[in-house]
């Protein structure tokens, strides 16, 4: 036996002994909890505070029970629990009822099952093959995180968008598992309107990591590690590197029809999709969007490429483009754009009614992730109605709103408590953000060319594409313009470390801020990985800025520093 083999054997025996020891300890612990003496001590502790104290002390002293006892009874854990119960309360009885009602609705949406027995069985099998699908159930806790401490109209608006998005994601999952022949695999940031007009479904390849992270904030880490172990540099933007990680782990459902991807939002995604393409081995179309889309020739090149994509889809899937259908989808998109403009306009008022994720989240879902959905129109009309009502009542969505901010760069996908933390701790309301803002163009529906040109313009201006990809004047010019329009108290610049293009512009942002006397809070972080900068690390940077530059007093000092394990 070689030394290496001997070493491995010794390690295996050691691992086994550790495992056995832990199991023995667990057994011993369980036996202790079941013993009559322990039960009697518990009964006594219920009635007698002194006996309770003694029991807690005893549990903390015993190495078998200490870890659990500390989690439950240590002063820190007790304080966290108290804080938690305090912060979970959402306004008056009506708000509590609204919250409960939507919470139930959210559960109902997540538990949705297909009609037929056969389909049910297929979906069950899919859940076994792709366990991340279970994470969708956690949409409810995502809703809780987004709505933490929210009241009134804002509470309703948040829940509505979340539930709608959950339903849209479930629909995509049903498509890829129940109707794979008519479903294409698609990268985010490709004009989704085209699939709809061709009667094709699409499954967004970013779902298992980039989207489900909002439900389970650690679900994606293994995919980042997977792709790095595979050889992709670990400083690649993790927005772009996660999906190849999913593919390499064998966790991406493959309908086997076609893959559509593009160089939007940036080249990082383009290069990582080379891995996806290679691993999946399905026919692929790569849209190559010109860098500067301001000239007519550039837009014409994009339109030509879109015609190419349509021809490719027709050939590979057998579906035909229905231009009348595209007209209807574009009209819906125009309607959504109109509503969005009104929402933005309302946020310019003294009491902005749609701040933070209420502004960002629906835009992200129904403009950038799945644009052209017919059911997004009634959702946006609903949100518009609520927004108008709040606007008329002068009801700001952040209560109390102390600071107006413009958020620049991609926001914290991987830290969904972020928005509500900003509201609760400092009263910060983000009135406009980079992923949401971009010129909204009306799509001219008179001809196929004009529709594709309208779509080209829309997608070139979509989340990240317009700003982080360049040219630099888009990034800086828009900050300056929005500052004039929204009169923020400061700019919150979330410096996602993987985003080379925007990192390179931080200096320009500082210079501009200095010249214009505009405070700018620069937060270094990783959009998807709290192992790079912890959540407390993110909060500390904002805390420092708020205290030292804005001279602000926290609304709730207990939220300045807290243990994320006991996340409130």
């Amino acid at each position: 036996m070689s030394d290496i083999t001997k070493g491995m054997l010794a390690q295996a025996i050691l691992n086994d002994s550790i495992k056995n020891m832990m199991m023995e300890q667990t057994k011993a612990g369980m036996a202790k909890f079941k013993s009559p003496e322990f039960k009697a001590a518990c009964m006594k502790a219920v009635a007698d505070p002194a006996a309770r104290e003694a029991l807690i002390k005893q549990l903390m002293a015993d190495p078998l029970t200490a870890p659990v006892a500390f989690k439950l009874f240590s002063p820190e854990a007790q304080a966290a629990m108290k804080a938690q119960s305090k912060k979970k309360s959402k306004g008056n009885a009506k708000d509590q009822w609204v919250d409960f009602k939507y919470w139930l609705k959210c559960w109902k949406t997540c538990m949705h099952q297909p009609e037929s027995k056969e389909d049910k069985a297929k979906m069950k099998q899919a859940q076994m093959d792709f366990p991340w699908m279970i994470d969708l159930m956690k949409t409810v806790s995502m809703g809780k995180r987004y709505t933490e401490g929210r009241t009134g109209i804002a509470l309703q608006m948040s829940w509505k968008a979340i539930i709608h998005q959950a339903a849209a994601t479930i629909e995509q999952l049903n498509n890829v598992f129940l109707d794979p022949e008519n479903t294409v695999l698609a990268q985010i940031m490709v004009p989704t309107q085209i699939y709809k007009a061709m009667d094709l479904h699409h499954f967004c390849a970013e779902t298992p990591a980039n989207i489900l992270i909002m439900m389970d904030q650690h679900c994606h880490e293994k995919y980042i590690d997977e792709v790095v172990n595979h050889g992709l540099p670990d400083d690649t933007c993790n927005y772009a590197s996660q999906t190849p990680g999913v593919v390499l782990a064998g966790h991406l459902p493959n309908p086997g029809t076609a893959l559509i991807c593009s160089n939007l939002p940036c080249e990082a995604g383009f290069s990582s999709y080379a891995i996806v393409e290679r691993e999946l081995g399905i026919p692929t179309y790569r849209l190559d969007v010109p860098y500067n889309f301001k000239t007519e020739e550039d837009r014409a090149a994009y339109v030509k490429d879109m015609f190419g994509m349509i021809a490719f889809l027709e050939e590979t899937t057998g579906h035909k483009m229905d231009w009348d259908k595209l007209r209807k989808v574009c009209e819906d998109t125009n309607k959504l754009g109109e509503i969005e403009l009104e929402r933005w306009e309302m946020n310019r008022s003294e009491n902005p009614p749609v701040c933070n994720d209420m502004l960002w989240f629906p835009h992200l879902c129904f403009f950038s992730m799945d644009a052209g959905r017919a059911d997004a129109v009634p959702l946006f009309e609903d949100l518009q109605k609520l927004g108008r009502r709040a606007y008329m009542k002068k009801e700001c969505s952040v209560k109390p709103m102390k600071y107006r901010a413009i958020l620049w760069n991609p926001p914290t996908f991987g830290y969904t408590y972020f928005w509500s933390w900003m509201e609760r701790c400092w009263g910060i309301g983000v009135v406009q953000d980079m992923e949401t803002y971009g010129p909204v163009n009306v799509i001219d529906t008179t001809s196929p060319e004009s529709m594709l040109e309208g779509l080209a313009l829309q997608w070139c201006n979509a989340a990240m594409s317009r700003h982080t990809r360049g040219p630099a004047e888009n990034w800086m010019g828009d900050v300056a313009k929005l500052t004039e329009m929204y009169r923020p108290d400061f700019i919150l610049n979330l410096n996602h470390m993987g985003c080379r293009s925007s990192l390179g512009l931080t200096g320009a942002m500082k210079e501009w801020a200095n010249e214009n006397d505009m405070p700018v809070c620069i937060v270094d972080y990783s959009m998807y990985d709290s192992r790079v900068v912890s959540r407390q690390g993110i909060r500390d940077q904002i805390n420092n800025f708020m205290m030292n530059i804005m001279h602000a007093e926290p609304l709730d000092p207990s939220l300045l520093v807290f243990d994320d394990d006991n996340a409130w």
Partner: protein
Amino acid sequence: MSTTYVCGCDVGSTYGKAVIMDLNGKIVGSSIVRSKIDPEETSKLAIAEATKGIDGLSMNDFAYLVGTGYGRNRVPFANENISEISCHAMGVHITNPAIKTIVDIGGQDLKGITIDENGSVKHFAMNDKCAAGTGRFFEGMARAFEVDLQEFSDMSLKAKEILPITSQCSVFAETEVISMVAQKKNPNDIAAGIQASVAKRCFTMLKSAGIEREVTMTGGCAKNKGLKNALEKILKFEITELSTDPQLMGALGACEFARKKALVAKAG
């Protein structure tokens, strides 16, 4: 409770500092003590040291007490906690109002701060993630030469040339220095290289916060003459020295905030 004295206590990662003032702003006591593991203990020790010699004054006797520094939240008897960035700015401002930019090198962090005409922070940039360019880094380097900090800080002043240190990380830099020592390179020249590399870090931080003259250094490392010299070479102008111990600036600023609060309370 004494209505005559106020206190500022800066609980840093390596040293605890306290400053006591009367309501006219005259410093009547100060202290610098090595930090204990427990920030509360550090603060008690620092305040007890600073009160020595002030008759009849005890820990709980201040009109107002402001805690600052990384352990500020653990000073249970403080009336208020204020961030060390604001305190350093205020401390420097009351010591020399002409100063507009500070480079603060503490035990475990490095900050660049610009201040306005009232002593408020205009911008700041900080590195609290990595030990390079902090007091801890210098301690490691002094250890590599087997000299104390004071001696180390003077070594570079006698250098004939600057031997560049390429590693930014303190762990690798220490290894690099040890190998240079083993190669029998001149220790003073190596020390000059170390000072130059930290000075570059300070400069980056200052640039990030925005440099405006006059510039000063605060924190324990402000007493490092070699570093001051190296930074002046990069800035191409002289760094202004403070009349009060630069290591006390955080505590002094905290004390000034305490004094203002006490005066308001007295007036009200």
